[in-house]
């Protein structure tokens, strides 16, 4: 935790350098700074994190491929480059804890406990999808694993997650809510309103910002008057921490710390995970707004490659083990895609099944060309 930056709620946030330099000055280096962390960790745990990160990488690559083949429709935002953040954050949650995310949700869905098969089936819009084909890429959801939704409206999930935390305290429970979002979200009203409510009402929630420094194509510097996003809870007396999102162990340590504080203190926290987006905002975005240098920098900071190198250097990941994991993940992703491919589309007869939970008189069930009064 020594290498993370902190902003104390209510106090003056510690300066971590100028706007342009803030990323490097305040975060650890994935390629060099945390090998001691690797040495402290059990090999099994490290290999499991590695496997999970590779799973997100391969799953998302397959998703991008299926999208360009028009097997997947709509908008499609991938977790490529954010694998360490996804795995670190999800490992900090207990099964009973709740998760809300934005639309970049595939990896979170899988590592909160949904099967890759059913996540892929949702992407394909099939009836075996986690939302029966009603949600698609942006709207993964599963009551069982308590992933209470990927949401497509920036900031929309924040009041919901805050309310879920209110319900936890209303019932005297000890669950924590994690609310994931992107860097651009910290400029919308829902962010400020949610933080105010969470602090005022002492709610057990961790707001996790995945800061890839680009809201679609607009940089944090061009959109946020305070670009050190972990400080933005200061006005609400919410403590914030920034961590290198390319470092799975650093993310996990910071997240576990804040999740457990939220649980025991019944207080909200902010965790900012800095990361690089390897590709454009969505599958169809060629990211022309990025300079060649920026693209090269992102590639050089690939968290999967960096972690692989670390584990190899530490002697944890042998060539044999690497191949074993690669093959197993390849098989798992291929199986997910096959499952999705073979899952039936939802039957059109179910079109009116989910408008209302309580049946209601005079609910409209007319199809587009039907007359209002069919006699």
């Amino acid at each position: 935790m020594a290498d993370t930056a902190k902003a104390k709620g209510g106090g003056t946030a510690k300066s971590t350098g100028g706007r342009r330099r803030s990323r490097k000055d305040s975060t650890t280096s994935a390629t060099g700074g945390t090998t001691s962390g690797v040495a402290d960790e059990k090999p099994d745990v490290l290999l499991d994190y590695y496997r999970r990160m590779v799973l997100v990488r391969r799953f998302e690559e397959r998703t991008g491929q299926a999208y360009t083949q028009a097997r997947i429709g709509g908008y499609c935002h991938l977790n490529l480059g954010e694998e360490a953040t996804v795995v670190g954050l999800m490992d900090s949650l207990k099964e009973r804890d709740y998760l809300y995310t934005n639309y970049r949700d595939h990896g979170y869905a899988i590592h909160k406990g949904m099967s890759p098969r059913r996540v892929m089936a949702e992407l394909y819009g099939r009836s075996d999808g986690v939302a029966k084909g009603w949600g698609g890429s942006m709207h993964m959801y599963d009551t069982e694993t308590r992933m209470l939704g990927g949401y497509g409206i920036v900031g929309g999930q924040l009041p919901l997650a805050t309310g879920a935390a209110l319900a936890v305290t209303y019932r005297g429970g000890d669950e924590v809510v994690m609310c994931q979002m992107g860097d651009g979200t910290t400029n919308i009203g829902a962010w400020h309103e949610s933080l105010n409510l969470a602090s005022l009402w002492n709610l057990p929630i961790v707001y996790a910002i995945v800061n890839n420094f680009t809201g679609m194509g607009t940089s944090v510097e061009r959109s946020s008057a305070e670009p050190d996003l972990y400080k933005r809870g200061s006005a609400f007396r919410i403590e914030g921490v920034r961590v290198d999102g390319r470092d799975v162990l650093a993310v996990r340590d910071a997240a576990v710390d804040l999740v457990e504080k939220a649980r025991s203190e019944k207080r909200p926290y902010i965790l900012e995970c800095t990361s690089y987006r390897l590709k454009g905002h969505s599958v169809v975005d060629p990211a022309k707004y990025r300079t060649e240098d920026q693209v090269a920098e992102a590639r050089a900071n690939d968290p999967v490659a960096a972690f692989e190198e670390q584990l190899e250097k530490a002697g944890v990941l042998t060539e044999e083990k690497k191949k074993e994991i690669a093959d197993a993940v390849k098989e798992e992703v291929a199986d997910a895609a096959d499952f999705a491919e073979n899952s039936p589309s939802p039957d059109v007869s179910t079109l009116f099944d989910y408008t209302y939970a309580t049946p209601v008189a005079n609910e409209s069930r007319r199809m587009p060309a039907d007359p209002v009064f069919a006699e």
Partner: protein
Amino acid sequence: MSVITYRQALRDTLRAEMLRDDNVLLLGEEIGLFEGSYKITEGLLNEFGEQRVRDTPISEEGFVGAAVGTAMLGLRPVVELMTINFSLIAVDQIINHAAKVYGMFGGQTSVPMVIRTPGGGGQQLGATHSQNIELFYAFVPGLKVIAPSSPADAAAMLRAAIRDDDPVMLLENLGLYNSKGEVPDGDETVAEIGRAAVTREGSDITLIGYSRMAAMSLRVAEELAEQDVSVEVVDLRSLRPLDRQTVVDSVRKTGCAVIAEDDWLTYGIGAEIAASIQEGAFDYLDAPVRRVAMAEVPLPYAKPLENAALPSAESITTAVKETLSAVGKRVG
């Protein structure tokens, strides 16, 4: 049978539902210590405490969305929005979230919440505090929008809304809070959402309204009865789902219709009703369907201007008489 106000009916029902079910909690601005801008929640903080009667900051998007989150975990929040005008600040949470969670995730989690909010002009509140924008919500599948016009309906419909597993917007009206009506003692009636009611039977013309306009339509019908005009009054009660059949059945009987609505005419609730009538009772119509609606201006403050812009008993009466004379029925 007791005669109580619309306000009292709402308050008594909230209290009874909170006693019945621990999962029912209230959220809103000034509902606790201040006891509600319109005193609907009077005494409830004292009785139930801060956990169940939660004063919120002026933060509509935040607390409406938070209510959706509590409902997703199985609580039954009843949110008070001080006026429907303030719902515009929470519109993303109402339309993009409350109305979508059940369907968008394939029916896994329902959102059992109620948003109570008054609309209505006539209080000299000016352009931003007098709008009737229930149409925005009645437009959206996934929401249920209901509009009681009497104390008995206010109680029965609020009870239904709280016990319903979907997000329900219950439209109140500033002009109705002090209106009185009979409510049976110990009444446990749960209204059926999605049903209109014929609140007065008649044979000459159908007069259709909701909320304050339904109450006003009844008074107009009573006055016209003294001039030997038999007006049938349909109270829509539910704006979504919309009970078109009850409207059409009445018009098939009377052959003509006037719609009274508090909102603006163009694209308003009345437009939908008129379209339904032409489709369901085309061969029965003896005259064009007439709409009485607010003048299409931001509502002014000055009393003579405000009065001129709003529908009134007189304007409804005029529209009814003109429609009747168009079909050859003499009045008065």
